């Protein structure tokens, strides 16, 4: 089960992902990101400090937006990954394509 909260903070929108993202709950994550993009925002922070587990289907959701972000000139920064989840991102190589930061402060600084 996963819960995604969207809050507008200053010049960016914060998406907080809480819980596990597996094959079935990845749909919820996908819907949340899609809605966020459709709302017209250009800057996003994704708080994954409460993301306990992510399956390949969940990684597929992040991956599927990389091209779209580039085209629409959207900046999305992920932060707060726990060690296990961060390792999953790294092995797949997603850390090379996504901007991943340790803390919210670093993420905000990177957002500019």
């Amino acid at each position, binding site marked *: 089960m996963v819960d995604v909260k969207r809050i507008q903070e200053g010049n960016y929108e914060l998406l907080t992902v809480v819980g596990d993202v597996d094959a079935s709950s990845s749909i919820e994550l996908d819907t949340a990101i899609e809605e966020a993009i459709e709302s017209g925002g250009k800057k996003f922070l994704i708080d994954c400090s409460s993301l306990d587990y992510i399956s390949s*289907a969940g*990684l*597929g959701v992040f991956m599927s937006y990389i091209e779209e972000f580039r085209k629409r000139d959207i900046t999305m920064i992920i932060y707060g990954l726990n060690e296990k989840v961060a390792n999953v991102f790294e092995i797949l*190589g997603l850390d090379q394509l996504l901007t991943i930061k340790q803390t919210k402060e670093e993420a905000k600084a990177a957002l500019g």
Partner: protein
Amino acid sequence: MSSKAIIRFSALVAAGSWIGMLLTALSILFSKNSGLDQSIGDEVPPILMSLFIFALFTFYKFRIERAESINFVDLLWKVFVTGLIATIVSLFFQLIMNMLGNTKLAENVVFLNFIYLSNFGLVAAFLISTFIVWKRLILYQKSRFLLTAWKVFEYALLLGLVMNALPVTVVENFEDVYSVILVLMGLVLSVNMKWVAYLNFKQKWKSILLIALAMFYLGYFSFTLVGASSDIADKTEYFLDIRENIFIIALISFIFIYALFSLLVLLFNLPTSSVFEQKLEEVVSFQKLSQSIQTEQNEERVYEILIESSVNTVFADAAWIELDNEKDGHKYYTHKIDVEGIIRIKNHLKANKIKGILDQGSDKTKNLNKYLATLKGSPYRSMIAFPIKVKGEQEAIIVLLKDVSEGFNRENSKIIGTFSNQAGISIENFRLLTEALQNERYKEELKIAKNVQSSLLPDEVVQDDDYTAAAFSEAADEVGGDYYDTYRINDHKVAMIISDVSGKGTSAAFHMSQMKGVFYSLTQHDISPKEFLDSANNALSRCLDKASFITTSYFVFDSSKKQVEFSRAGHCPTLYYSKAEGKATYFQNKGLGLGILRNEGFKNYIQIDTFFYSPGDILVLYTDGITEASNVKGEEYGYERLKETIEKHSAAPVEEIKKEIISELYAFTGTEAIDDDYTVLIVKFN
């Protein structure tokens, strides 16, 4: 003895004892009249008479009581036919008597006695057969008490029979008292009339007729016999007077009482029999509704049966069912009313601001009797409506109309309420059944997908002089996407691949088959691992759906150089055990999953690595199902445990290493059930 034999034997005994009784009685009479010596005792004819009655009783008991048919009218018909035959024969005797007129023979007491005893035989047959029929009617709905009461009655009658056979009277007036007791017992038993309720209107009329005729016979016989016996009694006292026979008197009274009761009850039940039939109709309709969920039928049929049953049971003049749900849209089923008429009624109700049942979603079940009185140009004056609910949601509404005001009573409302509930249940069941079938189909499809997936894995891995390899793959319940394969490029080169497709289910199996196609088409061109992954990414980028990717590691073994070239595309880091160093390490090389970056930029993320192997070194390829396998505490098997297991068993042959890994893995998780596919491919260099 079989019942057939008993019937035959008792018939024989009855006939024999009757003839015996006739002969002995007549001979005694003749001797007395002529003053001759009597060779037979006075006690013989009464004994034979009782024997005759007893044999007759047994005969009919087995013939009627054991008969399979429980049809009441048939039973009454038997009584009627027996009575008819007896009457005809009796009338024949009467005819002979009339023809003889005032001749000497007609005055002869012996001849009179002969006619009298013959008539007696016929009457006894009629009485006893009727008695047995009455018994069946009374005992139609048995209770313990009733059975006991009946048994007591039968034994009391038998006692009467025995007393008749005895030549002496024990107590003064005892026989009269006993007769009264028997009659009273018969009276008490005669209140059991439950069988009447099970007859329909026509059967009741038939029964009334048959019973009336039986009563007529009874009256006629009693009159004839009593008349004859009083005639004979004027002339002699030595004859079998039935007026003194307790058994016969008790039997006649009982039969008469029960016939009278039955006649009255039947008559009084005639007006209500239509109600009973209607109830039966309701039950049948109800059953029909329940059964309408058979597979060949559909929801439409349920509504049709509902409207038909409802109209028939409450005698409605018109009816409609309005369907309004997401699946079927808006639809009417009508009976003797058109949609125009329905809309007129609905508009009328709306115009008069009558809120309630006709609004979808309202659950008020209302009798709308009074509201239609003001609607002009419509013949209907009363109306009831009920919602048809499926899983608590209103699916449809049934409306019944009558052209009289206050046309529906409480009973009607109740039964229609029950019908619509049952229809709702039928539809729900029907849907559940359809759903279950659908699920079964999905399961079947998943099974096929699983079969396809496992058939994509090679039966055996390519071996080489330089190494031996062993593979293990166990699929999770859900279809996963682990893939491994080997290919001999030339005499010194072998390609090896391990892949994990993202996601699960049928799509994962599909992507896996695409990966296999890509492997076999590219690997034969003897290209470097980096080139392989670039081309594979290029090909798969056009095949995979938006959110899918495949992680892969690709190896080329070259025995001429004792080296392995490999590249990693997002797959779990490969474990390598070096015998020289005595420890295992994970290769730390860069990579990116296939299909993640679907353009030329992909090649920038792929690097090529090379290592040289020595005998005793071990290469371990695996998928994340292994490292992410968790135990009850939620701990993962992890990289460290895998590494330690390899180091511990590094000296063993490759098959044994494989077995050790698997058994340690299962021991760690503590369960046979697996969440994700386990795949491991071990290569040990010689």
